[in-house]
């Protein structure tokens, strides 16, 4: 995973609450056996007409959207299905951070494992950011993970929460599986004390 330290870039606003992962990447695109190339189908049903032509009013189709690394969304982003294809698609499109007042648990976990930073802000900050993006579609933000701050164009700094472990993983581009595999002695000890409750291979 590529380390995440600071991010400076354009903000793309999607002022919709409860964006579910079925919208982020519809189920018909989940037949892939790879992680790559999902960006072209990101938000497919909101982004394209049924004939495949782009809907000009959708934020991702507006000039400058390509290359905007920060998505600003409504409340409860990423609810619904556990598909990791959602953060794969967002990252493949070019997003490195999503700002919302709240994230669905599974989406947040999945995003963190793909170098996509979920930034939680309060409702007031969220509204200010939506206004900023409306006034100036080219508005740029700075996200500094080490200090956990979001820097607005007027210089105002807003801090955001992230648990220490996820922060270190992102800053160092560290993989959680590496950490888990280092716990081998503990896992083996646990398995010795707790025999398997089922054996799926028999019965």
């Amino acid at each position: 995973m590529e380390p995440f330290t600071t991010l400076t870039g354009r903000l793309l606003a999607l002022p919709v609450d409860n964006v579910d992962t079925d919208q982020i990447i519809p189920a018909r695109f989940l037949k892939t056996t790879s992680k790559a190339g999902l960006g072209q189908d990101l938000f497919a049903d909101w982004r394209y007409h049924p004939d495949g032509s782009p809907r000009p009013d959708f934020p991702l189709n507006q000039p400058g959207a390509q290359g905007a690394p920060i998505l600003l969304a409504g409340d409860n982003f990423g609810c619904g299905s556990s598909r990791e294809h959602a953060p794969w698609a967002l990252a493949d499109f070019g997003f490195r951070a999503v700002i919302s007042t709240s994230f669905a648990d599974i989406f947040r976990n999945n995003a963190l494992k793909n170098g996509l930073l979920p930034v939680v802000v309060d409702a007031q900050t969220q509204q200010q950011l939506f206004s900023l993006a409306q006034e100036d579609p080219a508005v740029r933000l700075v996200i500094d993970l080490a200090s956990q701050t979001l820097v607005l164009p007027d210089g105002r700094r807003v801090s955001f929460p992230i648990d220490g472990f996820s922060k270190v993983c992102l800053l160092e581009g560290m993989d959680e599986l590496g950490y888990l595999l280092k716990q081998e002695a503990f896992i083996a000890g646990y398995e010795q004390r707790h025999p398997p409750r089922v054996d799926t291979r028999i019965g």
Partner: protein
Amino acid sequence: MKDDLVNRPRTLFEKIWDDHVVTEEPGSPAVLYVDLHLVHEVTSPQAFQGLRQRGLKVRRPGQTVATLDHSIPTTPPELPIQDELAARQMAQLESNCREFGIPLHGMHDPTRGIVHVIGPELGLTQPGMTIVCGDSHTSTHGAFGALAFGIGTSEVEHVLASQCLLQRKPQTCEVRVEGRLAPGVSAKDVILALITQIGAGGGTGTVFEYTGPAIRALSMEERMTICNMSIEAGARAGLIAPDDTTFSYLAGRPHAPHGAVWEASLLVWRRLPGDPGAACDRLVTLDADRLEPMITYGTNPGMGIPITAPVPDPDAIPDPGQRQAVRKALAYMALAPGRPLLGHPVDVVFIGSCTNGRLSDLRQAARLMQGRTVKAGVRVLVVPGSQQIKRQAEAEGLHRIFQAAGAEWREAGCSMCIAMNGDQLQPGQYAVSTSNRNFEGRQGPGGRTFLASPLTAAAAALTGAVTDPRTLEVRS
């Protein structure tokens, strides 16, 4: 175990959690042991690829089990699979299972079915376990007093490799359901009412524990319906403390313990319910006596109404965010605000899914459809949750009731719940569906979903419109 845990009263969740923490370094999430890992074709290929790239094996193939459910056709198994991508994905799971030694309930296996249906059916799902799957409806298994939750594909790889997950301890929320359900009102209506009450994000960061007399009175299949949709309120998992209903469901199932081990397991399982004095972080209450059949009108499962109520008028909603959300939903659904849904025409009825594709669901629908016919022009799909359920239903003659009424009786799978296998709505069509998600396009691009119980779905099949099932008599 830490000293302070010995005497402190603990909830059901805390007992399972404590029992599965392998290690926990300060400042890091807990390493949580997984007793049972369920795998399906859609969220696993990239995880197996990750194992290959790192040269890793599956740590515990005997605690892992796979099935084909999401993209499998529900047409007769002897027919070729039309969708090449789906066929390739299924073949990939078959070869991954062979390569890594994982038992697979495959294409022609009589035990194949939806992953959350076959786990309980085979007795793999047991009280006190931790169970994960790359599927958000893993919360279903919480009906047995197992801590069960959905994970992403990276985490599928973690569990395949280490049988563990890194987890932060969630909060807990008791959902107490008082009273008893009236005739015509089902477990599906309870969970739809809850999600409507607290919203699609109301349970984020928490594990629900369902309690109260209305929950105790439910069968295991009904409890699974409730736990299944916990995720639709954003909850990580849903739990119901095991009791005699749980144990009698489990007794004699192929993977359930037998003989002396069964007796020993019972002793352990009976100690799982929360201790007196142990409380969850939050409490939500619901009164079963006051519930009516529920139906959703919008584009998330929290947008529900009692079936006799009008669709909300966005202009009457004070919160601007909610107002906008309802307005957007009604535009997608092409519904008029302030008008009842009753009588709204329906094109398709889907009876099935991990929410409501079990034998008791099919029996309920069949009871109402017996001796009647589906309204002309309405397509009705009845899709059993597993091949075993299909055979059981056929042994009871349920398939004849459905077929005589004019419904399609199909092979097991996720089918039109996720619309990956060709079973899908056409743009603009309305469906009454017993599944779990009414998101835009969930049942096919442009399709519009009303979520409801099997009874309400059967009623819509007969009348071709949204109908209160309590107004139809059962004909024997």
